[in-house]
């Protein structure tokens, strides 16, 4: 068949992925503004198009027509290149995600490590944005973002290792195929750790210390305007799209649905994950830097290590246990360990003692 040709497959899959990426960025910006408006008892954008649906397009046109200001003492090359360096890897992550049985840009046999590696390029790009604009707030914002990214990468990778152990493969397609029940039921603790640390990695609200308006104005994107600012905005929402897709793929069963398999269950799960992120954003206030760090090192890291140990013991010593026992033990263990550990760990306790 013509579509089994290597180049045709590459071109068509890449076009579909890019369209998916940009379409959902625009839709997520609209959804976020509407849903946050709903949470804050106001309307949100509702003038342009039905329900304000075309607001995103109007914003894009506005941003493209804006003057592109490059401040005088910036490092010009870095100022141009670092938004691109932050943006491109985010899109590259989608390459290994299976959207349906057999539809995937490339089925890497090291897919999980690929995701971790590629997302680390993006963090360097964001940091260089903060450096290049030659502004102390920008630099502080970039520094905070990088420190937070490096810290939260550790529990995230530990959780991914436990996923790899329990699925027996590093390919993302294999992990989806191995989920007879969604991983969230088998490993709730892993899901909690992964979700919190990826919220921190994409700088969503409880963890957005790098663009914290009340302390450092706008953080890393303070000097950016016009198309380059739009690029950074795309990074932010693109990371949200990719992260929702990843959570849906790794923990919620990916393209496997209750009634049908295919892209539609994946999209539904992804939108549900994004709505959950919005709910968290509307509920929780922003953490300060040191609390965000101590949450990672003192709360998430021990939990992720414990989860890794638990999964390894389950796979090594009890590989033939009935599913319902595993599910029951996992859920009880998760509730118990989070309850116990949150009794030991109080954010900001060090400050009270001083």
């Amino acid at each position: 068949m013509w579509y089994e040709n290597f180049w045709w497959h590459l071109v068509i899959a890449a076009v579909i992925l890019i369209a998916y990426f940009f379409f959902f960025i625009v839709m997520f910006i609209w959804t976020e503004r509407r849903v946050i408006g709903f949470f804050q008892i106001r309307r949100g954008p509702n003038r342009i198009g039905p329900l304000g649906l075309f607001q995103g397009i109007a914003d894009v046109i506005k941003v493209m027509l804006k003057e592109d200001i490059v401040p005088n003492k910036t490092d010009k090359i870095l100022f141009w290149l670092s938004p691109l360096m932050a943006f491109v890897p985010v899109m590259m992550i989608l390459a290994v995600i299976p959207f349906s049985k057999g539809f995937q840009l490339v089925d890497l046999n090291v897919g999980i490590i690929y995701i971790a590696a590629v997302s680390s390029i993006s963090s360097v790009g964001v940091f260089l944005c903060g450096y290049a604009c030659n502004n102390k707030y920008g630099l502080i914002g970039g520094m905070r973002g990088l420190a937070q990214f490096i810290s939260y990468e550790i529990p995230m990778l530990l959780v991914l290792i436990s996923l790899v152990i329990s699925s027996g493969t590093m390919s993302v397609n294999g992990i989806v195929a191995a989920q007879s029940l969604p991983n969230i039921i088998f490993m709730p603790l892993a899901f909690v750790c992964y979700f919190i640390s990826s919220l921190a990695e994409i700088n969503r609200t409880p963890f957005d210390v790098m663009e914290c308006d009340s302390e450092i104005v706008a953080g890393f994107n303070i000097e950016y305007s016009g198309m380059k600012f739009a690029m950074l905005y795309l990074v932010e929402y693109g990371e949200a799209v990719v992260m929702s897709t990843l959570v849906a793929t790794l923990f919620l069963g990916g393209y496997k649905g209750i009634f049908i398999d295919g892209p539609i269950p994946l999209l539904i799960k992804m939108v549900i994950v994004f709505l959950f992120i919005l709910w968290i954003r509307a509920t929780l206030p922003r953490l300060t830097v040191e609390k965000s760090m101590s949450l990672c090192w003192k709360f998430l890291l021990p939990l992720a290590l414990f989860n890794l140990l638990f999964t390894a013991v389950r796979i090594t010593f009890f590989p033939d246990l009935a599913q319902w026992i595993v599910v029951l033990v996992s859920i009880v263990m998760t509730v118990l360990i989070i309850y116990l550990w949150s009794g030991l760990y109080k954010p900001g306790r060090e400050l009270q003692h001083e």
Partner: protein
Amino acid sequence: MGLKIAFYILSLVLLGSAIYAIQAKSVIRSAFSLIICFLSVAGIFITLSAEFLAIIQVMVYIGAVAVLIIMTVMMTKQNEAGNKSNKLKIPAIIGALCVAALGCYTALTSKFSGTTSPIGTETDVLGVTLFDQSGYVLLVIIAALIILTAIVGAITVAREK
């Protein structure tokens, strides 16, 4: 054919960015160009179908080493014009020529023996070789212990009390 073209493009980018990393006046631009250099090395690994190695290259060298370099640059004093007291140009040229001569000699005389037997999926082979009981599992554990010692040592040095 496609692999050859990809190899030449990647090599050009690699050499260009490596030269710029040495040439650039600003240290942070050198770091940036070093990142591009690491990326193209990862690309060359992919053309050799060593996916695991390529991805580990990206993860270790860009995710860790480049970040470390950039963090270190933050602590250095910016010197736009370069070091003026540098009088080591002639020894540097001699050293570079010696290394180039050695490299040429090695490249021209070595045999480049490749494996003839098919080795299956590269990552599987690597995993079995590293963690099988007849493989290198003992060495892996020893390396892990050494790294753990280094981490504990770093924490001990960095602790205030």
